[in-house]
């Protein structure tokens, strides 16, 4: 630990600096009345292009991504590069979709995707399913941000013997995070994101210029990686894809892209934008982060060329490949710069963790508390409940990491990505058509969820010797095909969900099952800043609620 003292000092100073910013953020662009969920949970729906860019960028490209993607490249090679096509296709895919969601949410004051589903399909049950899916998918994602910080702390030698001592720095970090998120809401991560991303851009620019120079050029880096994969006995690795993992590669990229903007925290970032133009311009500007991610991914190969050996994992005999990038910096840069890089990762975990906990709190408040527990909650009460919920969510995430094997969070996050896709038919198609019946959407969701768990349960992982939840690459041979090819579970499951939804819709239409009243009008999907808003829309529809 003592040889890392400079790193620890730089890390701590930067960490405390942004924590101070987190508290001050409550007064940044201060509203007249903070006791409203629009203010605490969506930053007043007032963010312009630049703030949205930093906020959503810091939200989608999390610390865990920055640590885990190069770790994947380090271990498996080309297959880990799916993160690049994933973050390229996502923006043209959602270009029109998100703008519609923004407009209808602006018009009706929706705070969550479940709010939209509730009004569009007149179905509290479907909204509840969307909300619960969102919360369940988000929780392990928050826990994983802690894994990102932990990889850095481990490299700096900040560890202890008992579980509590080992996790004390993380508990303190999250307590500070919880305090300023409680006070400042979405303004805190928005302000901190400026610092975090500036640090990350500088660190990565230096790393991708200096490291190849030191390691003998990009050609030598790819050569070293190629040599490693040639020598390894694993069949799936290499610096190119092989015949069996190409379907997996593109279905994973496509499925992940579809899933990412369904996560509640992504939608929270988007709804905080002030008009349609902000969202559209960001669809062109956010890929700057994809370039950053692509370069960070290649740090995995640089670690191979530099001969980095990952630190041991929690279990005897295992290695923690998440320590690869921190170690690469630790062994190749002066201590003060390594400290800055580590701070960038550490702070990088706080921004998404804050937004995710706010998004989960918004879902609970709007779609469970207000829907089922307290119909007549005032906006001030909503904000109060959301603030408390954000604390509970963070305590839960810390408990996940302290008391359970981190692998459990990684498994859950894998499942989370697949289950959040099950809300796609209701949320995405719902923005375009109401043809799918609300009962059919519920049926599709249920079948999709069951299938997702079954498929993920079936997947073993040869590398870690685990029999279940070993990854998201499903062998097509399980479906009776005579092939070694694999496919992304989420891709299959969302298609099955859709087919079920269509078939059940025909059935329910044939039996003339009521499908509720659409609370939106076609023009709502094009509303922009300055258009009149429909206030307290939900209180007027309470009487017409049916039991679906």
């Amino acid at each position, binding site marked *: 630990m003592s040889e890392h003292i400079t790193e620890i000092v730089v890390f701590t100073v930067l960490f405390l600096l942004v924590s101070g910013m987190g508290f001050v953020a409550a007064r940044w662009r201060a509203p007249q009345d903070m006791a409203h969920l629009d203010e605490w949970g969506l930053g007043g729906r007032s963010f312009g292009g630049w703030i949205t860019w930093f906020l959503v960028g810091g939200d989608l490209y999390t610390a865990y991504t920055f640590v885990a993607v190069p770790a994947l490249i380090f271990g498996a090679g*080309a297959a880990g*590069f799916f993160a*690049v*096509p994933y973050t*390229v*296709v996502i*923006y*043209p*895919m959602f*270009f*029109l979709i998100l*703008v*519609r969601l923004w407009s209808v949410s602006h018009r009706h004051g929706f705070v969550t995707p479940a709010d939209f589903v509730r009004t569009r399909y007149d179905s509290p049950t479907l909204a509840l399913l969307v909300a619960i899916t969102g919360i369940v998918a988000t929780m392990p994602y928050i826990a994983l941000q802690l894994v990102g910080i932990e990889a850095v702390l481990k490299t700096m030698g900040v560890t202890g013997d008992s579980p509590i001592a080992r996790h004390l720095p993380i508990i303190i970090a999250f307590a500070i995070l919880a305090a300023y998120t409680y006070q400042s809401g979405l303004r805190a991560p928005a302000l901190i994101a400026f610092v975090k991303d500036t640090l990350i851009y500088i660190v990565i620019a230096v790393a991708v210029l200096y490291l*190849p120079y030191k390691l003998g*050029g*990009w*050609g*030598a*880096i*790819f050569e070293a990686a190629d040599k490693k994969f040639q020598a390894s006995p694993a069949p799936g690795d290499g*610096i*190119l*894809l092989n015949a069996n993992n*190409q379907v997996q*590669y*593109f279905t994973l*990229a*496509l499925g992940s892209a579809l899933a990412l903007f369904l996560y509640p925290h992504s939608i929270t970032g988007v709804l905080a934008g002030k*008009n*349609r*133009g902000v969202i*559209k*311009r960001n*669809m*062109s*500007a956010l*890929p700057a982060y*994809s*370039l950053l991610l*692509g370069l960070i991914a*290649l740090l995995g190969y640089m670690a191979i060329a530099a001969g980095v050996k990952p630190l041991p994992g929690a279990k005897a005999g295992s290695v923690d490949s998440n320590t690869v990038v921190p170690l690469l910096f630790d062994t190749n840069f002066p201590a003060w710069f390594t400290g800055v890089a580590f701070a960038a990762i550490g702070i990088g975990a706080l921004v998404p963790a804050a937004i995710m906990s706010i998004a989960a709190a918004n879902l609970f408040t709007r779609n469970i508390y207000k829907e089922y527990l307290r119909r007549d909650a005032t906006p001030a009460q909503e904000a109060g409940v959301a603030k408390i919920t954000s604390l509970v969510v963070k305590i839960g995430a810390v408990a996940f990491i302290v008391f359970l094997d981190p692998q459990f969070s990684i498994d859950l996050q894998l499942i989370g990505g697949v289950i959040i896709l099950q809300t796609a038919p209701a949320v995405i198609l719902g923005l375009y058509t109401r043809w799918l019946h609300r009962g059919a959407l519920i049926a599709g969701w249920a079948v999709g969820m069951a299938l997702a768990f079954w498929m993920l349960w079936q997947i073993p992982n040869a590398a870690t010797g685990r029999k279940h939840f070993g990854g998201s690459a499903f062998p097509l041979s399980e479906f009776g095909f005579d092939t070694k090819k694999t496919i992304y579970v989420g891709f299959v499951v969302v298609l099955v969900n859709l087919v079920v939804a269509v078939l059940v819709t025909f059935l329910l239409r044939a039996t003339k099952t009521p499908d509720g009243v659409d609370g939106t*009008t076609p*023009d709502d*999907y*094009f509303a*922009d*800043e300055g*258009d*009149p808003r*429909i206030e307290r829309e939900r209180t007027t529809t309470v009487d017409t609620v049916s039991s679906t």
Partner: protein
Amino acid sequence: MTEPESPRRTDRSPWNWLLPVPIVVPLLTPLYNHAEPRLGGFPLFYWLQLAFILLGVGTTTLVYRMSKRGDRS
């Protein structure tokens, strides 16, 4: 509440048909799953996929600019 008097708004535009291009092209693995030709030491697999980022940015920017007039924003 009555609807504001305004021409019927839409997000339809012929330019939207460009959007599928940067969605489909980066998913065609046979297109880029090769080592040669290399560029600055990067195998094709890596530099071409990084170049697709520009394809994505270019397309969304073009669609935004060209369809802006109909969007009243």
